[in-house]
Each structure stands twice: as structure tokens, then as C-alpha cells.
């Protein structure tokens, strides 16, 4: 089946090259934001007379081939005033457009007459998140978080309470390709998953793809979250600052050379450690903080060449120092846990012609976890350092060829060198002269080559047919894969279309997690000669409807996804890094894992209103996710922990007055599937020696007291639901605009389950076990102050 599909795609590609390569005049250019000169990706360019159009790419570039004539062309983008231009097309033209942000305009109710028509896009299962909307959605402690907003979309589920992890269509958090300016991010979370590392102030665009993946994406099974950082204001210095209950942040941007180059720097730091310091005992101190820093500079060499250098650095640090004296001896014990992400991207945009646009990126990304402990007294010093991590260096090249108004060809390649360090331990004891070092590394190379064909076959039918070739080598073992991709759109009538897509994906890296909740101690490991890459196949089909008169977009999608070679710890295998880091010395991860498969299917409904006085969306997901591992649940299928039958989210943002915005969200999710103890019994240990006891000898048959759990994940936690509310007061001051926000997370203080435990109650004669639920967030009020200058 897959071979047939691949062959069909290749034929389609060859056909399309000959059919659509006709000569016409080309209008091309860049779409920017008025004032800041920020390039805008995803802007819709539409020619009503021809019922054709295009969208700007990630770098704000567009190209449209049109027959000679006079046309009225509309440039529109959510959150911006649309621009309509009458253009005489009789030769190739460069037309750059500036769009004005609607939030800067007084008394304008945003109307996007031809904004982003999902019914006319050949992509499906894709969500473009308007970054400007994220700042209005209520958040825990007022900390705006892109990932928490993505969790409110159908098909995307959160893990446990407060966690920023994404579970997309039944896939695990490791199966999401999270890209910041082309650089993959490995552990995208602060504070054990409560906050994501992405500072919304610095982001220009966020796009989530859940299925129907275009061939340019590869390397993960479940989703692609592509984020682009702002370039920085090219005309004047500007900034934003915010003060919250646990953190503050600052963003500054401005021109280096007006209209040619600019910079942007944004930073955020928590101050839980500073707030708690006065309450720490005198002989001990410690604390926790995280910070992150985004920076980007860009330079327009000329109209055809642009350079961007961007980077991210973020670190979480938890540490303690403990000192005391006893019997003329002093003791000092210090230790800690920290983890950090760093990414860097150097990009070169080259507009080769008015039809061809290329981008070359040199990418660096790393994730490091370190645990250290040092104990000192007058006899000597004992120290232990443990670390694990992953480092990527990659080169990526992408080409877009706007062959005609009906045919866009994309191709590209990428190659990434991964250096995995699952464990590195250094242990020293100055008293016993013990000196132990152990470091395990894996060097691997992952490469991809792709071609995509966006074809408008006629006014009703369009398709994106692509093929990706993947090569992965580690431990001298090579894997090759061919990944066919296809997505199609058929316009049933104006504003209503039917869509279908197929994608196969491979993932050569795996995340080993003991708890499934995404702790920084989870290990990134490569595929090896013993561990095969993960693979998935997904089909999806659905309907998309635009109701422009009501500003509504409705999408209904069904999907079925199979995955195999998923990796998990064997039952009983435990990497108790937090308990005892020295265990890492003898831990061999390849012996402690088991391979499995999964299937996930469901239906997703999204009703979205992106503009207007009242905006927001309602999302509903009905889904099933099952897993099967050779050595878990005795090889039988079981419900995934985050299998969620019903998932509902309602998001509403209401502009009460020009200076007051009200917002609210309500979420509901079926309880997580967990394995719960039901009873206890003595389980006899078997040994063949019981049959061979010499006469008159008693062989001791021994028992383990074990728990009767029933089947794996056969019990459901209580359902999760929560309402968040916020009100924002905006005021234009003399030199800046300020916003006060008062928010209430979990406004009706629902006790949602975080985890369950068993508590035994004794009365001297008898005992009973009680099932207890721990919730972590009751109603949590917050207040934040933001300024934009």
C-alpha cells in the first residue's frame, strides 16, 4: 500500500511539473507590520476575480503568478487591518505591503473579510495561534503560556494538573517536534512542567500541526509546534515589561540601522528564591529559580538577502546548602539539580528570483541536566556529579519555487548530528581516594530530503503531495525510510470543503520516562542496532466551513493513528535518579526497555471566532488511545494514561469597553486512566527445585506479598474541569500603554485530581484502606502589571 502510494506521488510530481510550468507575470514581495517593519508570516493574499491566492511564508515573502490584467488584490491577516490594492499586472512586479495592527487603531472592530479561509487551504489538522490572542487568555499566576493555550485546542491534551506537556492525538510529549526559529527544543519546560520555556512576548507566530504533515516536517510522530521569534522593530526603540507574582519580564527591541537591521532581547526570571530566602533557617539555604533569555538580530543585506541570528537560553536551578557543627567537626552539604536548554540559529534568506525563495539555517540546540552533591567535613570531601543530555548541530536548506498560480514546489534537505549523553557520572571521595568516572555517549546522524507539491488541480480540488527520505545512523547501524505524505482539499461549495490526509512519520530518538509526567530527569536516547526508530501512520478526514458573515470557522476532523516501536521502561525497571544518582553507574538503559505499539482514533470539532468584540473558540474531542508493549500488561492492549474520552474547552475573550477586556476559559476532560491497587495476596514463588527435594528435606516455598491491580490503567481518576477568569484594564499613558490584569485560576475551586494514594487507617483491632486524592491548585488569584512602550 505504502509503495503504491509512493509511486503515485512520484508520478503526480512529474505530471505537475509539466502541466503548470506556464509563463505569466509574477507579483511578489514582502508583507510587513506598519511601524515595526516586522515581517508577517501567514498573511492571506487573495484575488477574488480569479478565486486564487497564496499566503506569505515564514519570512513574510509571497509570490503569485497572474495572467495580464487589472486585479483587486486583498492582503489580510487576523489582528490586522486588511489592505485592498488595485494592481495592473502586465509585467513582473515587486509589491511590498504594510499591514496595520488593529490593536493600535481606535474604535475598530476587526473584520477580516477574507481572512484565512480554512475551506480553501490544502492543509488540515493545523492550528495557527494568533499570538496577540494568547495575552488575553487567563493563565495560572498570570504567567501567559503558549503551550497552555495550545492545550485548549481539540486533539491536544494536557498531562497532569498544571503541566505544560502536550499529548497530541494520543502521542507522548516526546513525539512533538518543538521548533524555535528552526532549532528543536528538547525539554520545553520550567518548574517541572508547570511553565513552558517560551516567553510569549518574544514570539511572532505559533503553529501546531497534528496530522497531514507536509513533507518538510519530519523526525517526530505526533505533532510539530513551529514558533518564530519576532525580528525586532526596525524603526524605533520599543519594549514591553511585566511584573507578576512569581516572575518579571522585560523585552526591548529597536533598530540597529533604521529599516535595515534590528535586534530584540527578552528576558524573564522568577523570584521564588528571593521571596522565600528570609524564611530559610540560618544554617541552611537554598531555593529554586528559572530564567530565560531570547535574543535575535537581523540584517537586510539587500532586497534579496537577509540574515538572522537568534538564540534562546534558559535554565532552572534548584539547590540547597546545609551546614552544621557537631563535636568539634563541621559538616557542609550542598547539592542541586539544574537543567538548561540552549538554542542558536543562523539563517540566510535568499530571494533567488521573484518565484524562488530559499532559506539556509545553521542550527545548534542542547539540553543538559545536572545533579550534584558535595559533602565536606574535616576528614575530607565526597562529591558526586551526574549529568545527561543531548546536543544537536544541524544544517538545513529549504527552497520554495512558485511555479505558477496553481503550483508551488518546495524541496529541501537537513542533516543533524545528535550527541546523546544518557549518563555521565563522576564520583570522588578524598578520604578513600575513590575516583570513579563513567560517561556513555552516542553519536548519531539524522538526515532528511524532501519534495512537496502544492497543486490547485482546478478551482475545487487542491492537493499537497510530498515525499520525504530519511536516513539515521547510530552505532554503525543505518536506517532508511521513505515517508509519503498527501493532503487534499475539495471545495464542495463556497466556504465548505472536504479534506483528507495521509502521513507516515519516523522518529529516531526516544524519551525514557519513569513517571510519564515529563520530569527533567527523563532520558533522551537514540535508536541503536537494538532499538528501532518509532514509526507512525495517520489518516485523517474532515470538513471545514468558513462562515465569514459570522466570523466563524468550523472544522470537524476524524483521525486514526497507528504507531509502533514506541519505547518504555520494562515493568520493574527503575531509574531512581532522584533517589540515588549512583544507581546511574550500573544502569544500562537498553536492557531495561520494552518496545510497543499504539493506536489512537477520534473526532475533533472546533468552532472558532478569531476576530470581533467577542472572540474565542469551543473545542471538543472524542478519542480513544490504546497501547501495547511486549512486557507490560502481559502483551495485552491497555488504555494510555492520558486516554481521554471527552475533552472540551471553551475560550472566550470579550472586549467590554476599549479599556477593559474580560476573558474566561472552561475545560473538561475525562479522568486519566490509572492502575489502582484493589487487594493484596500472597504470591508463591516458583522454583523447579520443588520437584527435586531429596527425601525428608523441606524446601522452603516462599511468598511475595503482592498487590492485585486488576488490569493496567483500568481505573479512571475523577473527571477534570476548571474555569479560569481574568479581567484586564488597559490605559494609554503619556509614553506607554499599561495593563493591569487580575485573574482567577480555577475560579470555582474544583478539587481536580493530581495523584491518588492509599492511606491505611488502624484502630488497634482492624484496618481499612482509603483512597485519597491530592489536588494542587484550589482557586489561585493573580495580579500582573504590564507595560508596552
Amino acid at each position, binding site marked *: 500500500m505504502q509503495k503504491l502510494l509512493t509511486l503515485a506521488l512520484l508520478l503526480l510530481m512529474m505530471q505537475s511539473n509539466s502541466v503548470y510550468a506556464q509563463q505569466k507575470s509574477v507579483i511578489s514581495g514582502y508583507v510587513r507590520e506598519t511601524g515595526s517593519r516586522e515581517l508577517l508570516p501567514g498573511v492571506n493574499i487573495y484575488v477574488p476575480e480569479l478565486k486564487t491566492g497564496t499566503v506569505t511564508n515564514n519570512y513574510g515573502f509571497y509570490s503569485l503568478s497572474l495572467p495580464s490584467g487589472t486585479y483587486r488584490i486583498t492582503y489580510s491577516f487576523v489582528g490586522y487591518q486588511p489592505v485592498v490594492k488595485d494592481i495592473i499586472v502586465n509585467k513582473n512586479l515587486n509589491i511590498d505591503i504594510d499591514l496595520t495592527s488593529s490593536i493600535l487603531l481606535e474604535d475598530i472592530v476587526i473584520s477580516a473579510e477574507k481572512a484565512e479561509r480554512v475551506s480553501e487551504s490544502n492543509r488540515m489538522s493545523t492550528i495557527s495561534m494568533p499570538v496577540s490572542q494568547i495575552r488575553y487568555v487567563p493563565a495560572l499566576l498570570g504567567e501567559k503560556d503558549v503551550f497552555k493555550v495550545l492545550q485548549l485546542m481539540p486533539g491536544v491534551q494536557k498531562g497532569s494538573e498544571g503541566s505544560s506537556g502536550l499529548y497530541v492525538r494520543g502521542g507522548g510529549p516526546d513525539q512533538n517536534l518543538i521548533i524555535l526559529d528552526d532549532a528543536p527544543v528538547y525539554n520545553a519546560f520550567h518548574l517541572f512542567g508547570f511553565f513552558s520555556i517560551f516567553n510569549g512576548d518574544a514570539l511572532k507566530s505559533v503553529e501546531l500541526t497534528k496530522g497531514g504533515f507536509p513533507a518538510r516536517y519530519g523526525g517526530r510522530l505526533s505533532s510539530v509546534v513551529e514558533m518564530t521569534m519576532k525580528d525586532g522593530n526596525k524603526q524605533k526603540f520599543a519594549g514591553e515589561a511585566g511584573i507578576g507574582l512569581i516572575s518579571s519580564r522585560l523585552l526591548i527591541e529597536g533598530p540597529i540601522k533604521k529599516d535595515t537591521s534590528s535586534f530584540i532581547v527578552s528576558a524573564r526570571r522568577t523570584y521564588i528564591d528571593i521571596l522565600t530566602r528570609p524564611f530559610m533557617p540560618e544554617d541552611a539555604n537554598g531555593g529554586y529559580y528559572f530564567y530565560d533569555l531570547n535574543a535575535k538580530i537581523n540584517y537586510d543585506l539587500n532586497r534579496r538577502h537577509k540574515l538572522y541570528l537568534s538564540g534562546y537560553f534558559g535554565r532552572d536551578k534548584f539547590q540547597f546548602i546545609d551546614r552544621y557543627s557537631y563535636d568539634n567537626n563541621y559538616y557542609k552539604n550542598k547539592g542541586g539539580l539544574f537543567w538548561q536548554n540552549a538554542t542558536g540559529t543562523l539563517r540566510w534568506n535568499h530571494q533567488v528570483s521573484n518565484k524562488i525563495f530559499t532559506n539556509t539555517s545553521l542550527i545548534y540546540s542542547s539540553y543538559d541536566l545536572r545533579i550534584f552533591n558535595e559533602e565536606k567535613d574535616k576528614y575530607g570531601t565526597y562529591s558526586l556529579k551526574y549529568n545527561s543530555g543531548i546536543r544537536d548541530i544541524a544544517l538545513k536548506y529549504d527552497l520554495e519555487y512558485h511555479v505558477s498560480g496553481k503550483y508551488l514546489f518546495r524541496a529541501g534537505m537537513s542533516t543533524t548530528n545528535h550527541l546523546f549523553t544518557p549518563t555521565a557520572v563522576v564520583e570522588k571521595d578524598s578520604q578513600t581516594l575513590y575516583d570513579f568516572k563513567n560517561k556513555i555517549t552516542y553519536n548519531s546522524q539524522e538526515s532528511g530530503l524532501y519534495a512537496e507539491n502544492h497543486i490547485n488541480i482546478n478551482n475545487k480540488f487542491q492537493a499537497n503531495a510530498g515525499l520525504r527520505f530519511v536516513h539515521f545512523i547510530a552505532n554503525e547501524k543505518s536506517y532508511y525510510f521513505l515517508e509519503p505524505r498527501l493532503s487534499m482539499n475539495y471545495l464542495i461549495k463556497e466556504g465548505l470543503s472536504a479534506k483528507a490526509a495521509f502521513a507516515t512519520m519516523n522518529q529516531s530518538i526516544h524519551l525514557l520516562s519513569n513517571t510519564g509526567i515529563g520530569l527533567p530527569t527523563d532520558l533522551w536516547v537514540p535508536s541503536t542496532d537494538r532499538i528501532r526508530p518509532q514509526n507512525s501512520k495517520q489518516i485523517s478526514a474532515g470538513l471545514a466551513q468558513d462562515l465569514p458573515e459570522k466570523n466563524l470557522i468550523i472544522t470537524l476532523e476524524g483521525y486514526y493513528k497507528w504507531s509502533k516501536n514506541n519505547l518504555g521502561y520494562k515493568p520493574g525497571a527503575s531509574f531512581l535518579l532522584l533517589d540515588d544518582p549512583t544507581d546511574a553507574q550500573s544502569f544500562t538503559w537498553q536492557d531495561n526497555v520494552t518496545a510497543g505499539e499504539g493506536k489512537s482514533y477520534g473526532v475533533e470539532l472546533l468552532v472558532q471566532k478569531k476576530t470581533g468584540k467577542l472572540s474565542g473558540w469551543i473545542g471538543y474531542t472524542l478519542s480513544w488511545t490504546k497501547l501495547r508493549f511486549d512486557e507490560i500488561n502481559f502483551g495485552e492492549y491497555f488504555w494510555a494514561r492520558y486516554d481521554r474520552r471527552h475533552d472540551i474547552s471553551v475560550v472566550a475573550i470579550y472586549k467590554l469597553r476599549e479599556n477593559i477586556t474580560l476573558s474566561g476559559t472552561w475545560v473538561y476532560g475525562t479522568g486519566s486512566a490509572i492502575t489502582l491497587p484493589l487487594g493484596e495476596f500472597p504470591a508463591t514463588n516458583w522454583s523447579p527445585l520443588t520437584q527435586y527435594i531429596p527425601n525428608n528435606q523441606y524446601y522452603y516455598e516462599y511468598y511475595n506479598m503482592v498487590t492485585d491491580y486488576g488490569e493496567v490503567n483500568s481505573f479512571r481518576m475523577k473527571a477534570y474541569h476548571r474555569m479560569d477568569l481574568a479581567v484586564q484594564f488597559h490605559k494609554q499613558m503619556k509614553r506607554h500603554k499599561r495593563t493591569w490584569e487580575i485573574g482567577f485560576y480555577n475560579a470555582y475551586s474544583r478539587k481536580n485530581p493530581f495523584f491518588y494514594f492509599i492511606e491505611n487507617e488502624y484502630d488497634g483491632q482492624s484496618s*481499612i484502606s482509603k*483512597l*485519597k486524592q491530592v489536588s494542587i491548585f484550589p482557586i489561585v488569584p493573580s495580579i500582573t502589571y504590564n507595560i508596552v512602550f
Partner: protein
Amino acid sequence: MKTYKALLFALLISLMFTGCENMISEVDAPATEPKLVVYSVLSPQSDVIKVRLNKSRPLYTRWNYENNNGYLTVNNATVKISDGVTAKTLLLDSVDDHYKIDSSEFRIIPGNRYFLEITTPEGDKATAECTIPSGTHPAIELISIDTQTEYGETVYMVNFRFRDTPGSNQNYYVAPAYIFSEEISGTEYIYEIGLSKGDAFFTDKNKDGEYFIFRSSGIHSSVIGSNFEFMVFLSITGDELYHYQKSVTGFQGDNPFQEPVPIYSNIKGGLGVFSGENTVYTTIPFAIR
């Protein structure tokens, strides 16, 4: 301004409310009843067929410390074994609380399927079935004997291997042991000593036809004296016993960093295991230096 004050007041009230809130609450536990726990492993080499019956203790109901801590031995059950043609009833041996029948009355034959049915006057009913493995036992090959000195005495470790029978799809259990006779009384003792290298219980899945290599745990010269035999017991087991034993030995209680390990069961209407095994042993000549 009034709105701000009202909101700030509401915020303060909420903060106070948050501080008092108890975030641990009791939730409804699933209703559970005591279940029959069956343990029976059939072997063609055994003189007697044994079935042990217990009842599990449900967690969310009250139990008294008396009565064997809530783990009831079941001694009023009717236990029947059948090969599909002939059925026999096992009788309770009150000395060790096992239901038994002599193998001379009911033979266990490799390759045959057996059925177990248990009923109690209280209305419990459990059934199970299993097949006795009939595969060929690979030959054990001695590789070497390592020695080392610990606190002045010699410790021996025996390296041995065998090659899986290709295409056999077998589960193996390997148990090194030694038998020695006490010098004065002449009484024989047998000890299973475990492995210091290699997994004792494993399957040939994905390793068909491969060699499996083992090293015994240390045998201390002070314990064995000079009059002993080294043996390797090699069992081919049913899938049920393989899954059961793996889950029992892998069980580690409540470890928050570990997914719970459920205990395998093939008993319909109960817990535990009913399976078959087929064991041979090899004596390895062992010359003490």
C-alpha cells in the same frame, strides 16, 4: 477606582481562602470482594499434583488482624483436575494446606492440556487451563569455573551456556544449585544459588537459536566442604508461568517512580496461576582445587 478596590478586596479574600483549603480529599474507591487465589504448577517430573488456594484481601473494606491478617486459606473447596477425558478430585492435606493428588492416580504428560475447576460452598468458582511444555531441553555446556578469594576462603563461580533449540518458541528457567551431604549424618541438602550473570527466567523471543550464557553466584568453600555436586536445573515453562513469575519477582511495592507491576493471572474468576513446566537437570563435574 471603585472597581479596582472591589477586585483587590476579592483577591485578598481569595488568598485567605486558598490558605485554608485542604487539598487532600477522600474519593470513592472501586467496590472489591475477596478473590480466589490459585497456585498450581504441573510437572511431569513431580510425584504429586498440588493446588494451593487462598483468598485475596480487598483493600477498601475493613479487616481484622485476627484470621491470618485477612489472607484466608480456603479449605472447603472442591478442586477438580481433568485432561478433557478423565477428571479427578484433589483432597486437602491439612498439614501444608495444599489440595493434592498422587501422580500415580493422574498422570501429567508433556504436550497434553489440563483443566482445573474450583468451586466453594460460598459460590466462588474459578477455572483455568494449561498445556505441559513438550519441547526438547538443550544441553548445558560448561564453559569455565572462576575462582576468587574472599576473606581467606575460595569462592567458585561456574560459567555455563546452552543453545536455544531453533524455532522452538520456548520460555526457559535456569537454576544453578548444589547438593551436598553433611559429613556426619550423611543428610543431603539442595540449594538454589542463583545467577551472577544472565537472566534466570527468559524467553527465546527475538533470540531464536541463540546461545545463552550464565555465571552462577559464588559458592563458598566453607559452606560446601568437599563433598558436593553442582547442578543446573533447566525448565521449559508454559507462558502462564513465565508471565506470572516475572511479575511476582518484578513487583516492588509502591514506588512513586515506577509504574505499578500487575501480577499475571490466567485464572478465570480468580487470581494466581495454573501452568505447566518440564524440567531436566544436569550434573556438572566439579573438581575442587
